[in-house]
């Protein structure tokens, strides 16, 4: 995970173990590193464990955020939650120690992925990232052409209803495409072949009408 940083460089034993189990290897930051604001561009997310110096580290977190704007996740003990409840520091998130490694990984990933959740469309094991145009199926990237991608996106955004070829042409292609309605059939076929045999049934042909997704 690129650009993940941790302060202080010696985390508590419990949190260190959680990091290890979550397969996260953050860049370790000492107090002096926090001053190097020009290096902050390399950090996409900073974990700050309050540990045994909660107030001091809160100050560090506040300053770091003000100087660099980098998102911060605070690692807190259960009884330290009270400290951050009314804190006006804009936290990306916080995680309580003892920490479930899966939860830690999930929360870190939510931040590090530069993508806001509403930019990702999902259907079963299909993910469409509308910011980067990438599609993954079962965690493997799918190599779609632009129009295949747009057609699939339209389907995922508008599932469970039947669309005629003409409707798809005007909504996905956007104008009367010169290939005519047959173009839709061709693209559906290509799409089915690319998403694979098992998933090809996601797109149902409704005879004499058109297509339905999901």
């Amino acid at each position, binding site marked *: 995970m690129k650009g993940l940083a941790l302060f202080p460089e010696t985390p508590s034993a419990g949190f260190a173990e959680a990091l290890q189990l979550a397969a996260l290897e953050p860049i370790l930051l000492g107090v002096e590193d926090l001053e190097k604001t020009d290096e902050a561009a390399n950090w996409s997310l900073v974990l700050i464990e309050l540990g045994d110096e909660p107030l001091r580290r809160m100050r560090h977190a506040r300053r770091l955020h003000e100087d660099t704007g980098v998102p911060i996740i605070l690692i807190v003990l259960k009884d330290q939650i009270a400290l951050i409840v009314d804190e006006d520091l804009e936290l990306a998130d916080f995680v309580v120690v003892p920490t479930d490694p899966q939860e830690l990984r999930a929360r870190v990933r939510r931040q590090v992925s530069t993508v806001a959740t509403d930019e990702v469309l999902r259907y079963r094991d299909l993910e469409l990232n509308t910011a980067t*145009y990438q599609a993954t199926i079962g965690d493997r990237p799918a190599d779609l052409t*632009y129009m295949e991608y747009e057609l699939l996106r339209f389907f995922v955004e508008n599932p469970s209803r039947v669309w005629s070829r003409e409707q798809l042409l005007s909504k996905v292609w956007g104008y009367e495409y010169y290939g005519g*309605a047959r173009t839709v059939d061709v693209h559906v076929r290509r799409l089915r072949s690319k998403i694979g045999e098992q998933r090809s049934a996601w797109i149902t042909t409704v005879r004499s009408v058109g297509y339905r997704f999901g």
Partner: protein
Amino acid sequence: MTTDKQAEYVLQTVAKRGIRFIRLWFTDVQGFMKSVAISPAELETALTEGMTFDGSSIDGYARVHEADMIARPDPKTFQILPWREPDGVARIFCDIHHTDGTAFAGDPRNVLRRNLRGAADLGYSFYVAPELEFFYFADSGPNPKVLDQGGYFDLTPLDTAQEYRRTTIEHLEKLGIPVEQSHHEVAPSQHEITLRYDDAMAMADNVMTYRLTVKEVALAHGIYATFMPKPLEDHDGSGFHTHMSLFEGGENAFYSADTEHGLSKTADAFIAGLVHHAPAMTAITNQWVNSYKRLVAGFEAPIYAFWARNNQSALVRVPTTKAGKSSSTRIEYRSPDAATNPYLTFSVLLAAGLDGVRNAMSLPEEVGKNVFEMSSRERRDHGIRRLPETLSHALDELEQSELMNQALGDHVFDWFLRNKRKEWDAYQHHVSRFELERYLPIL
């Protein structure tokens, strides 16, 4: 669907998928794929301005005084190459332009686009589905060694060839080229993969990609795949049977519910056009000296220009479709061979068929009988002409065809005739084993 958005899509994909090389693909007049590799850094410029290259070294391209040409990538053809997946290599087909931005008449993609526009002006879009045959040999040497017969059985057992085919199909599907079916062909070591229909431009690109995919998979397994029309004297050659349909919007223009066999008047006239222009377009559909060794009696390839519904020796065949499947009514043209230039072949087939439609040509007599058993007089009485027997004869027929000249454009038409006459002359100089064995002992 603006080109800008498509270009943006390609650039994003290149960045996200770690693509290191983008191959710009285009085709020369004889159907050889040309490729220039560029780095991702150059891609944005290539997409907006095109890539300049020296066209004078490409067969059938520019004359020396206009050597600079521009390859403009067509972003909707961007694909990551599955057989190079770990290395991050993608391809993108290009249109070729002059430096002043006008389309280059010698670019086969441009020839096909022009013909498709002509069809679109009449309200038609043209869909094709080819059956592509090829051979696997042990190597590319001049004595073809088949893989699944006799002594070579040990080299690669039968199921190994199936494995090659399966890998090829997996690659094709990943490339967005849906496969209808595949099987071992009649001849030893010969295979066929049938592609699902697509619009003619996409299909011509697909055929180029398909041929490369087959060759790449063979290469990866240490064998050789060839699309040579007739590599083995005693066996069938490799065909490129082309199934065609015309659509008017969403409707199949070849279908009619009111006729006995479900064929529309448009279909009748299209067939008539194909049969009428068959001799003239043979030089394009069968462009090599060797092509004519496939068009001989005794094998499955057609040699007479006639049509039929169910006659495997017909040049134009109308396959039986399932009742009620109006969309699959289609016409099959059976003479082209696997080493044809798909852009030009689709262009001339479309031009010939549409000429029939424009002039409302009437459907010639269907020939159900075995044409080979007819006397030449009977054939003449039925108006059945033989396809050209040699490349030279085919070029004569081509040269006289005004329609072919229009369909191909002056540049391709002239270059093709000149180049192919040279090929024929080179062949004429050759004294073959046949002649030595036959004549030397007796003359």
